[in-house]
């Protein structure tokens, strides 16, 4: 970078894109991020108090200390000039407002579903459908077990046919990679159709 001016400094930085890993609380989002990330997932916490309260209201902050929303994320270097970030979205959808630009500009999303309680991921599916953000559904079988056929889960979650639904294991690197590839393939297919 020696001798380069400000403008070229900026352009030497890689392009960045992101994919969201969403789904209900405890469904394995951070596990999935960790399975494919080249770094140990990083966490950033946003104090909820900052959203609703002014700075003058920090009295008694000790009691409010636990009120933070965490965002876990990982990174995959695609090439020298392209880096993919994976963001595990906060489990409780009502906290997404804390991350205004989380969904903005995302390539798409993976909605992880806990096979034992698929309804906990319904809000995430609804969120992406309503915003027109492309997504695939990954059904995370705990301990790698998949007691229900994918068609049943698709029906239970009312996932439309054009959305891919895959059985996966959030602990397994290749399995998670395949879910991400399915998302990209779906994006490519709809781009070609358009």
């Amino acid at each position: 970078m020696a001798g380069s001016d400000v403008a070229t400094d900026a352009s030497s930085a890689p392009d960045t894109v992101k994919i969201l890993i969403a789904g209900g609380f405890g469904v394995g989002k951070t596990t999935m991020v960790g399975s494919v990330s080249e770094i140990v997932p990083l966490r950033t916490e946003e104090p909820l108090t900052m959203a609703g309260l002014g700075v003058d209201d920090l009295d008694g902050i000790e009691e409010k200390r636990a009120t933070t929303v965490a965002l876990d994320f990982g990174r995959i270097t695609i090439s020298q000039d392209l880096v993919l970030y994976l963001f595990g979205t906060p489990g409780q959808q009502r906290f997404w407002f804390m991350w205004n630009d989380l969904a903005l500009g995302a390539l798409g999303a993976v909605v992880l579903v806990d096979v034992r309680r698929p309804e906990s991921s319904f809000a995430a599916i609804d969120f992406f459908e309503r915003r027109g953000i492309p997504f695939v559904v990954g059904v995370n079988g705990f301990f790698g077990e998949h007691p229900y056929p994918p068609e049943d889960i698709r029906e239970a979650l009312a996932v439309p046919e054009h959305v891919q639904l895959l059985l996966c294991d959030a602990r397994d690197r290749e399995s998670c990679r395949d879910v991400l590839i399915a998302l990209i393939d779906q994006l490519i297919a709809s781009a070609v159709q358009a």
Partner: protein
Amino acid sequence: MGGGDSAGRLVRPFALTGGRTRPSRADFTLIATVTAVDPPPAAAARPQPEHTRILRLCAEPVAVAELAARLDLPVSVVVILLCDLLEAGRITVRPPRPVSRTTPDLDLLQKVRDGLGRL
């Protein structure tokens, strides 16, 4: 600026921004990439300790979210500090690759797919 105690963890960030809770610019989204300007501009003022920490961490390009995690500070606080550094000419910022739903970038998608295939 010790603030090592548990209660300080939330209070201290506000002190770092001089009480500011809103950024002065919108450049610093989660995956915007930040790079320190090297060498710093001749007229650069001596940065505050937190600014110095940021400059050290972004000697090589780094995303805003990653900076926040490594600094153990909320993104909202880091963004305000980054605005200071940008306005002082100490860093450059590169916005994320734009993603269009209406005209998808096939080259980009293929590149991502190839990269994932190599995992």
